[in-house]
């Protein structure tokens, strides 16, 4: 075998994968790791979604109240048929509020932080986590 022919032969030897007796165990371990990381991700996303959802509902609710009261004033000023619609909006908002009250979410005291403060703190935390993930991924490759 000449030197020129040798490289392809080496490549063929390298391409020939060795057989491992514990291949099934290796595959099972890897599948377990995949499942574990997937569970963790699902849980983290669920928690983040829940927290974000609660905060979003609280914020929307407060905006709705302001909107409802301002549109009530406007409607009262106009004294027109829009009053009925405004009242419906207020009723809807009150219904959502009472439902959240029943669930104990609307009255939830999230420490001494206000809604917006909590929102920004959570957003900052998520951004930090995302940045850490990107950094770690960039280190892997």
């Amino acid at each position: 075998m000449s030197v020129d022919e040798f490289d392809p032969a080496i490549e063929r030897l390298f391409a020939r994968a060795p057989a491992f007796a514990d291949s099934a165990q290796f595959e099972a371990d890897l599948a377990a790791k995949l499942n574990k990381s997937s569970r963790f991700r699902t849980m983290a996303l669920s928690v983040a979604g829940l927290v974000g959802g609660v905060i979003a509902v609280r914020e929307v609710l407060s905006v709705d109240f302001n909107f409802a009261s301002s549109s009530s004033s406007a409607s009262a000023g106009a004294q027109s048929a829009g009053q009925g619609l405004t009242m419906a909006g207020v009723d809807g908002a009150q219904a959502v509020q009472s439902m959240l009250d029943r669930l104990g979410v609307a009255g939830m005291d999230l420490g001494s932080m206000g809604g917006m403060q909590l929102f920004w703190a959570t957003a900052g935390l998520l951004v930090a986590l995302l940045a850490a993930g990107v950094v770690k991924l960039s280190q892997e490759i």
Partner: protein
Amino acid sequence: MVKPLRDLHDVELAALSAAGGRREFGELVRRHSPAVRGLLRRMGAQPALADDVAQDAFLLAFEKCAEFRGEGTFGAWIKRIAARLYLKRRSKDARYVAEVENDDVAPNVDSVGRMDLDEAMKGLTEPERLCVSLCHGAGLSHPEIAAAINLPLGTVKSHVKRGLDKLRARLQPEPVAHGSASHVG
């Protein structure tokens, strides 16, 4: 009609894996994990470390499956990922380019003096082993190897050449000189 997994091409399996298909990715693991584990061991990793890095490589490949578009083979792609992960892991521990010769141990050879590739690789120095494995096992070019292990290009070429020379000598031992005696008389 849905084709069984074993009938699907790697590119199809990778596309399905990118969409979250774990069974499809499992088939890719079944097909390529022996090659990846073998490559890492040939690069000099101890079996436990090799398997650990191989698993990390497959986990990373699952995350990045969408980036595999089938320009090369999936096997080459995953081997490159694994090789780079192993180099990164090693670089955390120590500089792996120290010019330390391996201890001379008696190699396992067959009845006609040949040994298999894994056995022959043990006769190479660590840098030679890395360079030959990365070149012929992971498919990296010489400049890519030089960049990956932070060595000058000329040094990488020398390591590859010396490593191949050693492998050639070990895989194809010189025939026993029997010609001179047979011609006598």
